[in-house]
């Protein structure tokens, strides 16, 4: 190459708009004629808890001694109306995930791990399995639009009831459990033929709107003799109004799920383009509770992308009473584990990126009904892993709370936080770091 030739050709330049992923998706769409369906939650980068920092103690704030002074973590849910509220030892619950989307050992492992740590797990579409009930000291029973497996006896055996209006991965969307995951047992529980795709409805069959929801909640309370806490779960879309309407409808607990929340099978375009990041949803929901005089009386559980104890602490500081984890819990019991790399490669992916949960070929034995794959998951060992993980989350959250001088994790508050970006400062309504500026403060949500 002569002296000037090196300057004739510019190096390859990837388009910021048509990046490799966008181009690959266009090729895939052109080849197949159908949208991409996958599991997991939103993968795009959105403002998240990493954009917040705790300030910690200083001259004007007095810290608590680590490893010595206590920092409470328990939370009681459902005291507004239920005769039997439930108390969790830690402010971290396991989100609803169905038997069908998950294997029976996976559901059992979630129950075992949650029970070791004194917290709850949650059923999903298709109803309650015996393994799950036996393994879970506290089990929340979901009432979903599909009502697959809905049974009043199971309702009465539950410790709490969760009416699912929506989920963060797909606010306004139903679900589809593809035929390859419909085993005889799954089909029987859902009263449908084996092997067919099972559509989970996006609307409840017997109520429409908040006035009806209020009556539906009364019916469920009557059936269970007003004993069970009743949650209402919504995807983060209009958190101020949805929270207010859930409270008006009589909910004991509001569950708010951000767009990073996982799903077993949803269109990629839905996962990535509908709903709010959880960071943007917590403060409006808390504001609704405060405006109604119901903050801490109606509990708020938030979810969608909680990964570590700092995330937990930030949710609580923003006003939540507890958090819920789904994707992180699956990872804790073995999803996307690096030792399965060879098998992920055979599926055309790699450990850390596997999201074809709907296909039923999960080498970890978690998002599958294949008997051979399912046997790979030891529910006892996997439950222990989940308990370990929950323990770490709790310890991390306590570590931060003590550093902020809090004797209970619920004493964390927005004043303990600053934001690293203008966007996260606006969404979390905390000052941009190094300033006293909260963008948009006082404006409409």
């Amino acid at each position, binding site marked *: 190459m002569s002296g000037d030739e090196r300057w004739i050709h510019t190096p390859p330049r990837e388009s910021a708009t048509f990046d490799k992923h966008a181009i690959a998706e266009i090729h895939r769409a052109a080849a197949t004629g159908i949208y991409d369906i996958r599991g997991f939650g939103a993968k795009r980068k959105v403002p998240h808890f990493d954009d917040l920092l705790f300030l910690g103690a200083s001259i004007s704030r007095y810290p608590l001694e680590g490893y010595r002074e206590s920092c409470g973590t328990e939370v009681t849910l459902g005291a507004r109306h239920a005769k039997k509220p439930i108390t969790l030892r830690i402010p971290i619950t396991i989100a609803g995930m169905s038997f069908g989307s998950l294997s029976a050992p996976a559901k059992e492992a979630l129950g075992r791990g949650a029970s070791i740590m004194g917290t709850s797990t949650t059923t999903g579409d298709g109803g309650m399995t015996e393994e799950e009930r036996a393994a879970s000291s506290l089990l929340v029973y979901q009432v979903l639009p599909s009502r697959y497996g809905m049974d009043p006896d199971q309702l009465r055996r539950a410790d709490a009831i969760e009416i699912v209006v929506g989920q963060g991965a797909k606010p306004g969307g139903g679900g589809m459990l593809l035929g390859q995951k419909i085993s005889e047992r799954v089909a029987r529980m859902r009263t449908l033929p084996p*092997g*067919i795709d099972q559509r989970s409805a996006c609307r409840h069959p017997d109520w429409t709107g908040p006035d009806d929801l209020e009556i539906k909640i009364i*019916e469920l309370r*009557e059936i269970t003799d007003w004993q069970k806490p009743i949650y209402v779960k919504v995807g983060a879309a209009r958190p101020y109004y949805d929270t207010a309407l859930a409270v008006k409808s009589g909910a004991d607990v509001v569950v708010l799920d951000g767009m990073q929340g996982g799903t077993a099978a949803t269109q990629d375009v839905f996962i990535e383009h509908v709903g709010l990041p959880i960071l943007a949803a917590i403060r409006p929901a808390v504001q609704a509770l405060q405006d109604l005089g119901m903050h801490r009386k109606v509990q708020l559980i938030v979810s969608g992308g909680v990964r570590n104890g700092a995330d937990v602490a930030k949710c609580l500081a923003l006003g939540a009473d507890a958090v819920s984890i789904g994707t992180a819990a699956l990872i804790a019991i073995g999803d996307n584990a690096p030792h399965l790399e060879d098998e992920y490669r055979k599926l055309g992916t790699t450990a850390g990126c596997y999201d074809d949960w709907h296909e039923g070929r999960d080498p970890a034995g978690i998002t599958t009904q294949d008997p051979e794959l399912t046997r790979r998951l030891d529910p006892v060992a996997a439950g222990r892993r989940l308990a370990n993980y929950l323990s770490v989350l709790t310890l991390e959250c306590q570590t931060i709370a003590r550093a902020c001088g809090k004797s209970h994790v619920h004493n964390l508050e927005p004043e303990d936080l600053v934001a690293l970006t203008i966007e996260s400062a606006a969404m979390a309504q905390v000052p941009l770091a190094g300033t006293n500026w909260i963008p948009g403060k006082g404006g409409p949500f």
Partner: protein
Amino acid sequence: MPTVDLATAPVRELNAALHSLQPSTNETVWRVQNPRGQHAIAVGLDAPVTVEIDGSVGYYCAGMNKQATVVVNGSAGQGLAENMMSGRVHVKGDASSAAGATACGGLLVIDGNASARCGISLRGLDIVVKGSVGHMTGFMAQAGNIVVLGDAGDALGDSIYEARLFVRGTVKSLGTDCIEKELREEHRMLLRSLLDAAGLPDVDAAGFRRYGSGRKLYNFHIDNIGAY
């Protein structure tokens, strides 16, 4: 016979009393007066008793019923006998929308008309409507039977799975993947038993037309995208 007057006693008191009944109870017939459209009357029952309600009821009457017989001498609001598991529910008047929604077993008889989405997501209950039914009846119905002596509104059986629909009158339109099917002898026998159970021995089973799933949408296929 125990009698509960809902003009003075709260619904909570009635339901609590019915829930506390033991299988061996000899209080097997209950009368409820002045329901006045209140909601969630006689819900979550699980005993072989009869509850007769004198008047019209609100939402979710007899919801999730097991074993019991509930008779409404009036009309019923939304979600009548929703998710019923077994037993018998009989409404002498009309029923609002979503009657028998998601219900799994037993028999629901409506002497008058039923509004929209009757038998939505049905999972095994038998429903006999002596009048007509509204739009989207049998939407996504999975199992069970819906018998309509009158007419059916728009989109009958939309996205239906394995439930069977029998209509004696006209059908305004069929929903997605719902087709008319041959009424064979086995279906006439089934209809006969359902009509007899509903107290209609004089109605000719041969006068009905049968509808059910075309089963074309059971597995998602791109060639069917226009049907959704």
